[in-house]
């Protein structure tokens, strides 16, 4: 039975509309959240706020300078540990994997993703903090790095597998060895998707509080080196948000805004550097 053209065209329009609605709802959610943060905390966003150390409650001035730097440092460490592991594993699963090993590793990565962040924090606490004898930025960065890995693995593997097989086959037919083929043909083709996965995982760990409570602790002052406690935006947000003082609540909202701005900056910078500068193309 042939469906009438009119019916098919109507379904077409309807579904385009429906999916558009889905996209709109999701985008609207973020815009609302950003708007709320801006509205609540905007008047705190001064240069002082971004560069000074925190002041005790009730006293004017004070800022989150140390928390911003702290978050930056730990995200750097997380990226350095999480990205290579995740990337390499994703490549392994997609290109080299044997059946059982692949299955087990994939499962393990999924499990790792499902661990509550506080449990990851406690794990790093027992393995790193207790061994070192003190809280540190190192421990915090490692905890965040571990949390990044599963997302990078999954998205890398999925994207590489989605690259058409004939691209690699063409390279192999020209006599290139497999690893060269993957490195010079497949990975560049998958570059945008891999970047998405990495940035997504970075965004996710940027906002995590629980794992940092037991690893990087907190610090009211500037911290030096990697082996002392360090402040971070999510921990400060959490501490201020659950306090009784309205001025601290406002600062928490402002800090949330700063955190999102930080992630946005990293996003923009990474894409600008690594993409070909063209909008997403199909196929």
């Amino acid at each position: 039975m042939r469906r009438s053209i009119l019916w098919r065209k109507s379904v077409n329009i309807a579904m385009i509309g429906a999916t558009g609605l889905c996209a709109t709802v999701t985008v609207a959610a973020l815009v609302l959240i950003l708007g709320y943060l801006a509205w609540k905390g905007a008047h705190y966003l001064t240069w002082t706020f971004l560069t000074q150390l925190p002041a005790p409650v009730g006293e004017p001035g004070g800022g989150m300078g140390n928390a911003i730097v702290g978050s930056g440092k730990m995200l750097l460490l997380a990226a350095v540990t999480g990205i290579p592991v995740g990337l390499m594993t994703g490549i392994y699963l997609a290109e080299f994997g044997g059946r059982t090993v692949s299955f087990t590793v994939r499962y393990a990565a999924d499990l790792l993703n499902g661990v509550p962040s506080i449990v990851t924090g406690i794990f790093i606490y027992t393995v790193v903090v207790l061994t070192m004898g003190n809280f540190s930025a190192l421990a915090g960065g490692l905890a965040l790095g571990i949390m990044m890995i599963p997302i990078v693995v999954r998205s890398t593997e999925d994207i590489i597998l989605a690259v058409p097989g004939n691209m690699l086959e063409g390279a192999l037919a020209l006599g290139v060895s497999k690893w060269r083929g993957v490195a010079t043909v497949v990975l560049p083709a998958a570059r945008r998707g891999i970047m998405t996965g990495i940035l997504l995982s970075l965004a996710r760990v940027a906002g995590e509080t629980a794992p940092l409570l037991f690893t990087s602790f907190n610090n009211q002052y500037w911290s030096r080196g990697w082996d002392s406690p360090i402040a971070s935006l999510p921990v400060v947000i959490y501490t201020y948000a659950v306090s009784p003082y309205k001025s601290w609540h406002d600062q928490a909202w402002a800090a949330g805004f700063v955190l999102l701005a930080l992630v946005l900056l990293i996003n923009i910078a990474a894409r600008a550097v690594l993409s070909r500068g063209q909008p997403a193309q199909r196929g």
Partner: protein
Amino acid sequence: MKIQKSRMLVWALSIAIAGLILSASSSKSANLSSGESPAGQTLLLNAAGSTFAYPVYSKWFNSYHQEHPNVEFNYASIGSGGGIAQLRAGTVDLGASDMTMNDKLLATFKGKTLQFPIALGAAVPAYNIPGVNVALKFTPQALAGIYLGKITKWNDSELARANPGVKLPNQKIIVVHRSDGSGTTFIWCDYLSKISPEWKTKVGANTSVNWPVGLGGKGNEGVVGLVEQTPYSLGYAELTYCLQNNMLYGTVRNSSGNYIKATLASVTAAAADNASELQKDIRASITNAPGKDSYPISSFTYLLVPASIPNAFKLDAIKDFLSWMLSEGQTQLQSISFAPLPQAMVDIEKSMIPQIQ
């Protein structure tokens, strides 16, 4: 290969920022967290624990630092249990807890540990009844009955009797309690255990308990948020929180028969009237304290200090801080809505300081 200007710019910027961050992390440590401090360099001490007391420590450590620029006290609010655990593990120098440590817990520590009450807090009953804007009077039995699930309506006789002249609606009471472990829960349950034998056997007192009824809110802000949003609800929250946010809360009848509203003064009174008990054991509970002006649901928050501190610089800094805290520090509490220690307590604690060696 032609590289666009914008890409070069972003590369340069990223490298510059990374360089800045890395240089800020150079390991030429003024970080002496392991503690030696020759004169002139900064001494860093770490404290952790109670989220409730965080504003106090934040203010004190900052003020102390202004007067002693080469001493830095660092604080992280990871919860009283966390503070105790970190002190036991030796990863922090001082712990902060809203609860006292019983002998069993103390035995798990390597050396002797002293508990210094530093300030007072209280748990107050906050509620949201459309149409009622006055402070309701709560008898101990009313509170126990509500939290046991026995008193279910606002116009129950127990509440009506204590509040003649207030029109209480015929609505179910929606009970709210803390979901996270907290010292506030502990003193609330400690009080209920003292005035209600049924509560004592059925539920008991701890930072977390098996609540017979009610919704759990996370943190003071969770409980208050729920109460503010839910008509006909009742919850308990820290006095500090309620004062700072201008909340409506009720009065509670104390053991002398007076309905006392929790204020900084009535809370300090609860400690003052109990000084003799505290002299014997600093861990004595002051809920349902005798004294006609005492607020019955009050308690201390404690600073936990190891009795033996090997590092001489840290030892001096901590002892000096404790003396400072008992004199100058106490004057700073009222502005942030914490109740100061009564003079009797200050004296008791001053005599404890020499025990630290």
